[in-house]
């Protein structure tokens, strides 16, 4: 029985990587388990039966069962999000550069008025960060129109990326503080990598959540019907 479980676990990983939804995976696995149990009762060995290439078998089975596949296409997603974020970063910097002197000229604050430092930081860094997120989400939404459920992915990104940014900012600041706010290239590179990795994680998570199956198996798959002997 453990061998069956092991084979099914490997098949499940292959189905997951192949973009088969959870409901379809469960249906395929239930069917396969029944058949393997019958084979084992007749003296078969599941590993031998399925051969060395269980992943290949699982993909073939998914194809033959006609299940719907939704591919994550994470490489394209991350590349597009990165391009959008970079363009957004440039735009955000440009906005800030143009906006800051304009605001200084328009809003003539008296010398006695002190802007809270938190507010100043939030505006100074928040505006470019917001534009970075908007850039990444817009790029994904527009450039990856061919991917299924991309609208939902973009929506999830718009929620998760700011949350990831809020999460990683104090961590990065703490790291910077621990290095005495060093401007050494390797320290700066580490800080940038920390932020990018977190945003990439948020993007991947957004995609995973958006393509997660809604527990409805494919229409075409595995309807068990009554036997009508020929």
């Amino acid at each position, binding site marked *: 029985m453990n061998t069956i479980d092991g084979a099914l676990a490997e098949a499940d990983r292959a189905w997951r990587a192949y973009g088969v939804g959870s409901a379809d995976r469960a249906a395929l696995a239930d*069917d*396969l388990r*029944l*058949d393997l*149990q*019958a*084979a*084992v*009762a*007749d003296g*078969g060995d599941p590993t031998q*039966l*399925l*051969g060395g*290439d269980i992943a290949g*078998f699982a993909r*073939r*089975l998914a*194809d*033959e*069962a*006609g299940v719907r596949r939704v591919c994550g296409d994470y490489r394209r997603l991350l590349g597009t999000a990165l391009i959008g974020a970079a363009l957004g970063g440039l735009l955000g910097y440009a906005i800030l550069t143009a906006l800051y002197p304009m605001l200084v000229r328009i809003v003539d604050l008296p010398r006695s008025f002190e802007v809270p430092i938190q507010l100043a930081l939030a505006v100074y860094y928040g505006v470019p960060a917001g534009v970075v997120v908007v850039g990444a989400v817009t790029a994904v939404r527009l450039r990856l129109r061919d991917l299924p459920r991309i609208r939902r992915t973009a929506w999830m990104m718009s929620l998760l990326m700011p949350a990831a940014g809020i999460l990683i900012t104090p961590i990065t600041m703490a790291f910077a503080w621990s290095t005495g706010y060093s401007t050494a290239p390797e320290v700066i590179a580490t800080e940038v990598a920390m932020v990018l990795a977190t945003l990439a994680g948020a993007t991947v998570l957004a995609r995973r959540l958006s393509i997660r199956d809604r527990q409805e198996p494919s229409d*075409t*798959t*595995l309807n*068990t*019907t*009554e*036997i*009508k*002997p*020929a």
Partner: protein
Amino acid sequence: MIAADNEPTDDSDRQTQLLRGVLDMCLLALLAREPAHGYELVRRMEDAGFGAISYGTIYPLLTRMRRLGLVADEQQASPTGPPRKVYALTGPGRSHLDAWQKQWDRFADTVAGILTPPDHNPTRSCP
């Protein structure tokens, strides 16, 4: 030019290609005789003389035929073990089998007609 060393592999490839074209028909024919579970079909194919056909080939094909409504399955209690998922031919499966069998007969006749040498081999006579 095919080297003589490659002949066993070539035979095996040809056998695989031939089998690929008829495997679904053979499975339907076996199920028409008697319903069976997946592993049982593997053994029946072997007994029929096809040699070792892997379960990994037959099971996905059965799944496709089930999706197409050519076979149906049900769980049957087994006195010796867990319940068995047994496949049987459906009405559409029977119709398909009949049609495929006729097609196969025509095809095999045509091939045989080409492969079989004529009864009287005319010899060229010298003038």
